[in-house]
Every structure is written in C-alpha cells, then in structure tokens.
C-alpha cells in the first residue's frame, strides 16, 4: 500500500515535470512582445479579482457576528455559482489530464483522479482568490476564533470535487451523439434558471406557489455554503460539520464516478467512433442541408463550404459554442427585453446576435484553420488553392452566423418576446457588418497566427491562444465601432433611414476592406506556409491546457 502511494506520488511528480517541460519548451518560441501582450489580459483580470479579494477580506475583518452570519452564506453561494458556472459560461475548462495519453502507463486510477482534482484549481483561480480574501478577513477578525476560518478550505475542496464531476459529466454528455446537445442545453438552462426566475418574479413581489414550496423545502436543507459560513465564522452547530462532511462525500462520489466514466470513454471512443459514424444509404435532411452550397456556388468553393458545414456541425466544440450563443445569450438578455427599458431592451436581438458573434469569433473568424490541423496542408497543394479555401470558410462563417440569428429570433417569437421586423432586420445588418470587419481581421490572424484546435474536445483550449484573445479584445470594439456610428446617425437624425444608410455605407466600405485584406492575408499566408503548417500540426503535453 505504502509503495503504491509512493509510486503514485512519483508518477504525479513526473506528470507535472513533463507538463512544465512542455510549457517551457513551447514558451521560448513565442516572441517577447507576444508574451508581454499575452500577459496583459491575465494581469488585468486577476488584478481585479485580487482587489475584490482584498475588499472582501477588509469587510470580513471588521464585520460583526450578525453581519457575517447573514452575508457570508450568500457570498459563499455566489462563489460556488461562479466557480461552477464560469467555466461553462466561457466554454473553457482550465487544465485537465490528457487521460488518453496516460492510460497505457501503470498509473493507479486514484493517482489520476487526485491529479485531476488538483488541476481543477486552474479552472477556479478567481474563486480561490476570493476565498483566500474571505479566509484572511475572518482570520483577522477579533470576534472569530483563529482556527475556524480553516473550514473554508473544506468548502474549497467541495467546490473542486463538484467541478471535476461537472466537467467530466459534460465531457461524457458531449461525447454521446444525440443526447450531448440536449444534455449541454439542459445544464446551461439549469445554470441560468435561478436568475431567470428572479427576474421574472421580482416585479410581482411574490413567488408562484410551486416556487414557494420549493423555497420552503430548500430552507430545510443545510447547504454547503451555509454550513461552511457557520463553521468558518465559529457560529456553528455539530449538524453544520456533519452536513459539510456529507456534502463533501457526495461531491467525491459524484466526481469519482464521472471521472471513471470518462476514462472508460477514452478507452472506447476511437474505435466506437469509427464503427458508429457511418450509416450509408440514408439521404437525410442533414445531407440535403450539407449539399445546399452547390445551389449558390460552384466548385471548388461549394465543395469547401460543404466540407465546412459538415466538419463544423460534427465538431463538439463548435456545437457547444453555437448552443451557448443561442441559449445563454437568449436567457441572459431576455429579462431585459421583457421588463427593461433603454438600448438593451430596444435592440435585444442585436445585442444577442453581437454576443453570438463574440462567442463564435475564435472558431469562425480568428482561427479559421484551427480545426483543419495537419490537413490544412491540403489547401497549399490542391489546385483550388488557399484563396478558395479562405473564401469558402468565410462564407460558411456567415452562414452559421445568420443561422444563429434566425434561431434566436425564432426562439424569441416562441417565448413571446416582442420583436419587430425592423428589429430582426437590424440584427442581421449589424451582425453582418460586424462579421465582415471581423473576417477582415480574422483572415490575418487565421493565416499568420494559426492555432491547432481539437474539434472533438468540447472545451476551448486556452493554451497558446492568448495572442488571439488579445487580437479579439482589440478587434471586437474596432469592428463594432461602425455599428455604433450608425446608431449615432440614427439618433442624430431621428430616422431609421439614416441608421440603415450609414450601415449600408459601412458595409460597402467593409466589403472593400475585406477584399483588400483577404488578398494581403493570402499573400502573407502563402509566404508563411511552412510555419503555418508546422503550427497547426503541433500536439500537446500530458495535461490538456
């Protein structure tokens, strides 16, 4: 047993060492400027959270027992939500073990699981910062015994285990054809349901009877955030400790079960996929859908657009992003559309469409060759050439964008959100102009800074993508500025015609810029072909970053 534990420890150390070497080997290949630019966003983000953490600490340091008893459970509840939901919201998963590559080695399942739990820390760094702030605040509070804040560590462990379970559950759901989208959709909906209900019933000052019953039932449960708050502030009862231990045990069982199931998927996915995918002799509606580009374009562009529709539709990661743009965007902004006033409420569909553009940007606009990986070489050797490929990819991007807007508009009509024909037209036009400008920039980034992406991985790979994120951060406001000008013109002249007129002019200018940009990007891409193919063919380390 001891030798087993020792071996696991040694293996864990070896895995972490190999990951560190992988990152170290990768870093020197990036320029100093690239590294500096890539560091700005994390510094700003984590700097902000550090400030928030200090603020929380100061509040808790001076708060009296009553205030702590009242507000700490609420704070921990929101911390829990943030920890568990933000990775879903961002479609990012932080670090996780590349179990597929580690399975052939004699590593006990417990060691892999332990490492996976530790790696979950990376998906909740912001939450850990806040938890550390709360811990320090309570520790320095003279009214709180010095050892009780340590219970917050147990709350952190609970969150880590839940996040392993949720991630692995998602991986499993998204690996199953048919139910993966439904599963992801349900989880997304469950995640935003509380906010949606709160917005819905806030104005009525009373809950519907069924929700009231649910609230009463919920009051009878000792939730982990309540138990942790009581225990860490010293205002606890033995039932709090028991409840927290039970919650942690339940989270462990959940996480362990999901992790074991994921390993089983890793064991069977390759061959199962090879057998299950092809069902010949069925000319389904999807097949007709894939073939529709042939109506509008001629080969080779039609063939490449068709290939894009097929591959993107089959990619778990793209489907998840498409679904997020559709569902999250809708649910986040719907309460504003129903009850709110001002720009958001008036231009609801446009706001949701812009959010969808932002979510789809990485895949459709800024890293269009990412899913092609080594196969991108084909574009340089096939007679069709890179120009046809990029043009087709851009057309496919526009198609998916307009499909997303159409679906959002249809969903709005179903849930009876007030939409006018003018609002729908506005959403299409604004998203179209935004997309054309993003494509102009994105064609450059796709050809000059390509990043290999795994289409079957449901989550975004954030490693090596900070440059693209930086480009996105700058380019999105730039691309959105013309639409802002059109709105200004509309308000200044108090006429929709002025808005559409300016937007039409910008669309024309954007199209010219797109054509010039495409020529230039292709010329650069042709010169950069060796580096481009090498970058797209790259793999990873033992930990998926």
């Amino acid at each position, binding site marked *: 047993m001891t030798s087993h534990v020792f071996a696991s420890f040694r293996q864990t150390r070896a895995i972490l060492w190999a990951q560190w*070497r992988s990152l170290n080997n990768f870093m020197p290949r990036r320029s100093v400027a690239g590294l500096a630019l890539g560091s700005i966003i994390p510094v700003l983000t984590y700097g902000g959270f550090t400030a928030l953490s200090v603020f929380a600490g100061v509040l808790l340091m001076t708060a009296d027992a009553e205030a702590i008893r009242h507000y700490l459970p609420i704070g921990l509840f929101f911390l829990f939500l943030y920890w568990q939901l933000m990775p879903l919201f961002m479609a990012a998963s932080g670090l996780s073990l590349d179990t597929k590559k580690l399975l*052939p080695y004699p590593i006990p399942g417990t060691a892999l699981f332990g490492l996976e739990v530790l790696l979950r820390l990376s998906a909740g760094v912001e939450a850990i910062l806040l938890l550390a702030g709360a811990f320090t605040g309570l520790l320095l509070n003279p009214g709180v015994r010095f050892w009780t804040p340590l219970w917050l560590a147990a709350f952190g462990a609970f969150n880590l285990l839940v996040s392993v379970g949720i991630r692995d559950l998602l991986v499993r759901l998204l690996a199953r054809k048919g139910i993966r989208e439904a599963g992801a959709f349900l989880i997304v909906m469950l995640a935003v349901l509380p906010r949606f209900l709160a917005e819905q019933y806030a104005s009525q000052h009373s809950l519907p009877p069924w929700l009231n019953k649910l609230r009463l039932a919920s009051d009878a449960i000792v939730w982990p955030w309540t138990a942790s708050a009581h225990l860490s502030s010293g205002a606890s009862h033995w039932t709090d400790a028991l409840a927290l231990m039970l919650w942690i045990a339940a989270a462990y069982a959940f996480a362990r079960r999901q992790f074991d199931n994921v390993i089983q998927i890793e064991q069977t996915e390759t061959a199962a996929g090879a057998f*299950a995918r092809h069902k010949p002799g069925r000319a389904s509606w999807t097949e007709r859908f894939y073939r529709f580009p042939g109506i509008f374009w001629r080969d080779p562009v039609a063939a490449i657009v068709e290939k894009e529709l097929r591959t993107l539709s089959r990619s778990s990661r793209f489907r998840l992003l498409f679904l997020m743009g559709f569902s999250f965007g809708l649910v986040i902004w719907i309460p504003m559309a129903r009850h709110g006033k001002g720009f958001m409420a008036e231009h609801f569909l446009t706001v949701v469409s812009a959010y969808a553009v932002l979510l789809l940007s990485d895949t459709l606009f800024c890293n269009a060759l990412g899913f092609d990986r080594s196969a991108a070489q084909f574009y340089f050797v096939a007679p069709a050439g890179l120009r046809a490929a990029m043009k087709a990819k851009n057309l496919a991007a526009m198609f998916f964008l307009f499909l997303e807007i159409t679906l959002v508009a249809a969903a709005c009509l179903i849930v009876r959100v007030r939409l006018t024909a003018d609002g729908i037209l506005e959403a299409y036009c604004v998203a179209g102009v935004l997309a054309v400008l993003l494509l102009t920039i994105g064609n450059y980034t796709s050809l000059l800074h390509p990043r290999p992406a795994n289409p079957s991985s449901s989550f975004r790979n954030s490693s090596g993508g900070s440059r693209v994120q930086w480009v996105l951060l700058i380019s999105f406001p730039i691309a959105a500025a013309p639409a802002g000008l059109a709105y200004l013109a509309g308000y200044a002249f108090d006429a929709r015609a002025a808005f559409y007129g300016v937007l039409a002019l910008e669309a024309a200018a954007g199209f010219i810029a797109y054509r010039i940009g495409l020529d230039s990007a292709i010329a650069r891409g042709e010169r950069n072909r060796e580096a481009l193919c090498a970058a797209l063919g790259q793999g990873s380390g033992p930990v998926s970053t």
Partner: protein
Amino acid sequence: MPEGIPAPETPAIEITELRKVYAARAAVDGLSLTVPRGCFFGFLGPNGAGKTTTIRMLMGLAKPTSGKISILGFPMPAQSVEIRQRIGLVPDETLLFDHLTGPEFLEFAGRLYGLERPTARERALELMTLFELGGNEKKLIADYSKGMRKRVAMGAALIHRPELFLMDEPFEGVDAVGARLMKDLLLDQVRRGATVFLTSHVLEVVERLCDRVAIIHDGKLVLEGSMDELRSGAETLEDVFVRVVGGAGATETLDWL
C-alpha cells in the same frame, strides 16, 4: 514466490472467448488464443479484421464486451496496473507528447514506469543513442519525422525492461536501418525470455521473425500455429494468408481506370 504474483509458467497472453461489439457490429468475435512465454508471436489479418481492437483490449485501452484476458498470469482489467508495469507498448498511433524533446519523453515514460529519476534519465540518453537519435536531443518530438517518432515510442516501450511487448505495426514508417535495429533488439529481448506480440502487414518480416502466427478475419480466429505448421511445401506466409482470408479471386478493373 510473493503472494499474488503468478507462476512464471503461465502463458504470456491467454485470451478466452473475447468479444468486442461496436454499434451492434462485432469487431472481435469469440477470439480464443494462447501465446506462450518467450515467443515471437505474429498477429495477422486483413484491414478491419479486428487486430488493432484486439491489441487495444490487451493494452487496456479498450474494454471487452465479453470474454477473458489474462496477461502474464494477471487478469485484465482487474490488475491492469500490475500488467502495465510489466509490458512495453507501441500502439498504432504513438501517444507521444509533442512539446517534449526525445530524451525528456523517454525520461518521463521511465519515471511513470517507476524508475528513479537518474536511472530514467541515464537510460533515456542511452536509448537515444541506441536508436540513432543522437544529435536530436534538443529537438521537440513535434519536429520528428514519423520514423523518428516510432523509434522514440519503441524506446519508451523498452526503458523499463518489460516482460512482454505489445506492438501494433511497429515498423510502419521506419526506414530499413531503423527497422533492422528494432528487429534485432526485439529478437534479443525474446532470447532473454521476453515475449513479443506484434501485428504487421509486412508478411516477409513476420515470416522471418515470428515463431508462431495467428490470423484473424472478421474478428474470428481462422488459423493459428507455428510457422512450419502453417506452411505446406513451398508455400510462403503470403500464400497462406491469401488462401485463408480470400482475395485471390479475379481482379476486376474499373471502366474508367
């Protein structure tokens, strides 16, 4: 003998009624096979016959639908950690980490197999030299050619001196010099008592190296025996293979070709 360690006379591999079903189709269908210790065993079959699925199940990378697998006397997957400790793997797709250099990866693999860090590092450098990868120590695996990647994978399979080698197309993409080196190494391992279980489409290689051969077709075992038992008269292994799995019929041509 310590408790739980199987006797050395147990077969290297014992497969009983193994089945693997994907989407209602059996990739491996009731396969039973025994591979004695110290044997160079060739596992053959046409494309899609179930070779890779079988070897993936032996490696513990795929879960059998039914049937039993025993490797070096240990049941798989119940004692998969003990089994993996004793086998060297070269899978069909090399599971290498592209952002590590060759020596780094070999050291990493050695440490995962339980070697002390200095031992793993020393053996990694020796294997790099043995596989004629000297001069590429600072290159990332991502920059290696296919043949070089196979050599590194082979090195990782050897680093802990396993008792059994499971190899799926180990010579694919390797040049003649590299293939010769790998063959010599494997023959040497068999001489010292190790067992090699490999799949290959290059029948001449199998014929020259292997003591025993099994041929599967559509997931079922169709022939098994020593090389002399299988060949009758002047028949080559290729003749036997084509006779057993079919495909020697009239060659049809396409009108447009």
